[in-house]
């Protein structure tokens, strides 16, 4: 009887210990995000697509999905931002960080010096304004379902880390760019050449020679009549 009691106490202790371990692990195991950067500024050209690559890592014991973006003040400036969601495996240290690319298009911010003949083509650019600098942040956020668990109300939570980012937009002055006009002319010329060659060599050589002979005969006849 005494032996059984001792065994029951032992089992209870083991169960309590296991419970504590489960509770502790459920509290401590969560996914996190890590960001590594080696530049806080970038020179960018207006009207062009720019891509930045940041290194992401996750030294925590649970995998996480992360996505990269910019702060609200930069969102107002940058057009068509493309960011990918990436799975970061657990225990990915900064030394083994994963590159995560983020692309965006810089709009034409030196509008006062820009003059286009048709829509946004055949343009010239003058650079009289001071260089424009846009400051904000790059945000690495954990991509997760943010709906609140349970039905009794409260706040869902999300986590992010950020790095400062200053975008200095270059203004490159240039005269009116007629490249597209020359390109169009070239394409039309090529089409015309192809059409002429197709027309010329469509018929077999014998027929072409017959036509030539016919024209020559007509010419001779005309010449004879003149004489």
């Amino acid at each position, binding site marked *: 009887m005494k032996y059984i009691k001792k065994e029951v106490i032992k089992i209870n202790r083991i169960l309590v210990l296991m419970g504590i371990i489960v509770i502790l692990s459920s509290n401590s195991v969560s996914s*996190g995000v890590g*960001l590594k950067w080696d530049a806080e500024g970038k020179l960018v050209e207006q009207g062009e697509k720019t891509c930045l690559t940041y290194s992401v890592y996750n030294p925590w014991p649970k995998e996480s999905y992360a996505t990269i973006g910019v702060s609200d003040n930069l969102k107002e400036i940058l057009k068509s931002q493309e960011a990918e969601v990436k799975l970061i495996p657990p225990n990915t240290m900064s030394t083994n960080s994963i590159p995560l690319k983020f692309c965006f298009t810089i709009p034409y911010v030196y509008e006062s010096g820009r003059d286009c003949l048709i829509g946004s083509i055949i343009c010239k650019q003058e650079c009289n304004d001071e260089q424009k600098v846009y400051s904000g942040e790059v945000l690495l956020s954990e991509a997760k379902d943010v709906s609140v668990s349970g039905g*009794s*109300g409260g*706040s869902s939570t999300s*986590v992010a880390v950020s790095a400062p980012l200053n975008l200095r937009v270059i203004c490159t002055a240039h005269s009116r760019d007629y490249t597209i006009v020359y390109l169009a002319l070239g394409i039309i*010329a090529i089409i015309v050449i192809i059409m002429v060659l197709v027309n010329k060599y469509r018929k077999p050589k014998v027929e072409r020679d017959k036509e030539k002979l016919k024209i020559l005969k007509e010419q001779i006849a005309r010449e004879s009549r003149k004489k």
Partner: protein
Amino acid sequence: MERYNTILIIASLILLFSLVMISVNNLTGYATESSAISNVTISKYLSIDLSGNLSDGINFGSVNTLPAADINASDNYAYNSTMFINVSTDSNTAVDFCIKANTHLTDTSSGSIIGLGNETYQNSSATNVTHPGPSSAAALLTTAYAKASLPTGQGNVTYYRLWLDVPSGIPSGNYNNSVSFKGVETTTSC
């Protein structure tokens, strides 16, 4: 036949002209010089994670009597707070945490709200029955990020407690919003 030849010659000339003009447009003159490049790259890196209970969300439970003041989040007191943010030892900078909410606590089915000014928080680098606290000195959540910690070094933790006031006259319902935590390098603003 001669007509074809004339067209061919003209088209070829136009093609030649356009090719010349395109290449002229792309012509640039570069002066060259040589130099030795001096280069250094400075990397910064930081990583944070929310404790399991904080990651699961901030739950204020069910409220039966209004008005209700300083309702504790369910994880405020497991004696200590179990809502915290870790800074990884694999970071090379101390971190400040910023906090914001996206909107008022809102019951999406009725559109009723509990104003954001009723959701408050405190933070502390340590936790016990009084820290973080007290609720009477708690800061209001806003929709803009605000600093919500002292600089937290590598391997260290900042603890949080959150409270909710529910004024009288709030219709029954399920009220939710989203609270965001952001880690920034300690010298940087939110």
